[in-house]
């Protein structure tokens, strides 16, 4: 799909990633452009809304879509009281994003065929009982700080879909779960042990992240961006830095970009080691968790020693990175790469040859490639269902453009495939770390960030360990954040988990869930 085929007025955004912005799409173009993207195999990356009523412009809704030459950001100004055409029939992943936009901004999707009706699924999503349905926290007349609505402590009255029939019963799970994981609610409809339906209810962790950004300067926002989803702090911090550097018109030194890539691969390996341990454990092999968690602890300790934080929080900052690495540090990482490669190879053999483990992994929680494609599964889970998409390959930012990243994919879409992709990605990330260290140029690690233009849009787009993280930033006056939307790939993948578990038994749910390992915090915001 060539950009000119869209018949939109497009302007390129400066920055590390290829992004085009249609600043003023028209209502009729909204669905047409989405349909065109979909027909060519493109995907919806994120959907969010903004309030420009203080500038006399009303609300707007934005969609970030993948096209062959990069990312297309469609902005649709809403002239008719905050309504826009539903696109969830084109991109099923849009459903929850649209509902969240309605909860937070009061803009609602209308039925594509009959604009007098709301979209078929217009239930609330992120809103529970903390604020009433006629109050919209992301509107500009809602103050950035403080809590102008009385603390709601009422019941969250949410209409779950009921499954009828003889012998069907419901198992409600959460929000407080049995293990050390994040809170969310799962409603299983089962017959015996077989799952007929799973419905998720998320939003328990909604803590007002997007509104919080609006009280911050561009410099202050970096720290919050690194805490949208703690397990992906490097990916978010880099995406945030990319967005800021885009609006400020600055490029970090090459050494800093290489170090960012080194940190991103460290984060990927650290998380994959962790998940592989837990996946073994959830299938009854405690040995796997003991071994992988030992490797991971060693990994975290090196991160702390060399970069000052076990999870690398605040290591990536706008303009560059916070900390340089010296020759002994490089030697230490090289030795670590060798150790981890050997240890993981041995553990992989043990996993592969363990009949009991493979019996639990294979054919469990399967998402076939056709379903993955239709629902828009992304990131690591997508690659395990033959969705060959990795930003480091498709649109490699510096320094990835020099490395020919080898994407790990698998066609089976089951737990075993997601395990295999993780093993493959550890190997590739170790290789990349070696290449980065060899290519590491001398020079500065950080440059000052000049003042940003007001009302500028900056996009950051990074392939984190879970999938693509997107930051959409709009500046206000005086280097302040006017609006910021952080988007986690979990938005796309949570709905697919509801499908992955169908036909499986309830006791396999923890294993299936872990094999996706989605973020609650990154989704609930």
């Amino acid at each position: 799909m060539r950009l000119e085929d869209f018949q939109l007025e497009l302007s390129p955004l400066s920055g590390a990633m290829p992004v085009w912005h249609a600043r003023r799409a028209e209502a009729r173009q909204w669905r047409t452009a989405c349909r065109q993207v979909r027909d060519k195999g493109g995907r919806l990356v994120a959907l969010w809304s903004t309030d420009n009523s203080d500038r006399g412009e009303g609300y707007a809704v934005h969609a970030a879509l993948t096209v062959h030459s990069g990312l297309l950001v469609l902005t649709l100004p809403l002239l008719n009281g905050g309504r826009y055409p539903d696109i969830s029939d084109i991109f099923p992943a849009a459903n929850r994003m649209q509902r969240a936009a309605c909860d937070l901004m009061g803009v609602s999707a209308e039925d594509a065929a009959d604009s007098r009706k709301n979209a078929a699924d217009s239930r609330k999503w992120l809103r529970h009982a903390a604020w009433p349905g006629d109050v919209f926290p992301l509107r500009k007349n809602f103050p950035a700080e403080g809590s102008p609505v009385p603390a709601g402590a009422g019941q969250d009255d949410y209409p779950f879909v009921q499954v009828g029939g003889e012998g069907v019963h419901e198992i409600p799970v959460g929000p407080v779960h049995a293990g050390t994981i994040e809170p969310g609610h799962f409603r299983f409809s089962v017959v015996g042990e077989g799952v007929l339906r799973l419905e998720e209810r998320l939003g328990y962790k909604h803590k007002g992240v997007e509104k919080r950004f609006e009280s911050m300067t561009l410099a202050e926002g970096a720290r919050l961006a690194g805490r949208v989803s703690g397990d992906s702090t490097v990916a978010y911090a880099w995406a945030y830095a990319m967005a800021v550097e885009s609006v400020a018109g600055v490029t970090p030194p090459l050494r800093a970009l290489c170090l960012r890539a080194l940190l991103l691969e460290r984060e990927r390996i650290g998380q994959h080691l962790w998940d592989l341990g837990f996946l073994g454990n959830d299938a009854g092999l405690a040995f796997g968790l003991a071994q992988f968690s030992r490797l991971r602890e060693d990994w975290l300790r090196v991160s702390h020693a060399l970069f000052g934080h076990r999870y690398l929080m605040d290591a990536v900052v706008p303009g560059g990175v916070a900390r340089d690495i010296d020759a002994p540090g490089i030697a230490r990482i090289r030795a670590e790469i060798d150790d981890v490669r050997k240890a993981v190879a041995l553990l992989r053999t043990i996993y592969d040859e363990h009949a009991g483990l493979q019996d639990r992994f294979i054919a469990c929680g399967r998402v076939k490639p056709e379903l993955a494609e239709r629902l828009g599964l992304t990131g690591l889970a997508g690659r395990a269902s033959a969705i060959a998409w990795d930003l480091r390959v498709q649109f490699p930012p510096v320094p990835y453009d020099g490395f020919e990243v080898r994407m790990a994919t698998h066609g089976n879409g089951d737990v075993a495939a997601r395990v295999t992709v993780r093993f493959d990605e550890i190997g590739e990330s170790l290789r990349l770390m070696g290449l980065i260290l060899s290519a590491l140029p001398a020079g500065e690690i950080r440059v000052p960030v000049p003042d940003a233009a007001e009302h500028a849009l900056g996009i950051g787009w990074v392939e984190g360990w879970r999938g693509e993280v997107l930051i959409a930033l709009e500046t206000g006056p005086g280097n302040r954040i006017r609006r910021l939307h952080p988007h986690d790939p979990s938005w796309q993948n949570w709905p697919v988990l509801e499908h992955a578990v169908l036909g499986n038994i309830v006791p396999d749910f923890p294993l299936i869930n872990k094999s996706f390992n989605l973020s609650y915090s990154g989704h609930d915001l």
Partner: protein
Amino acid sequence: MFQLLRQIVRTGIKTEAPPETDEALRTTAERLNAEVLRRFQGALTIRHVDAGSCNGCELEINALGNPYYNLEGLGIKFVASPRHADMLLVTGPVSRHMEVALKRTYDATPEPKLVVALGDCGCTGGIFGESYASRGRVSNVIPVDVAVPGCPPTPLAIMQGILTAISIKT
């Protein structure tokens, strides 16, 4: 199987010494007598509640189980129900959407209901603070005995907080 057993033997025992307790972490005066505390030494059960964290603290709580920290080696374990728990380990600023769940979990926990709040957010509300969606620090919602700062606190700091809550002053 041979490889698996050989790897266990090769790895050996990695467990390190636990940290000393630190009375400075207490937010309220010790409210249990030595007789009660003695029962928790070597047999403490914890229910973790994530009340709205960024999930960073959860990474470190999970790390407590790795062979280096080996929390279970001290007789301390995580349980699935608050009804089986002596202590709640609470992370995050408390989101308003988790407020009811946290209070109910607290109500379901038997006395003496020890509570350890974790992380900068659990101690003060952290970077998320108080807002239309967040109640801020854990002690705004339930009573807290020990608060452990850090973003996230290291596994050693978390262990120190847990051990402080059940330490017997001599």
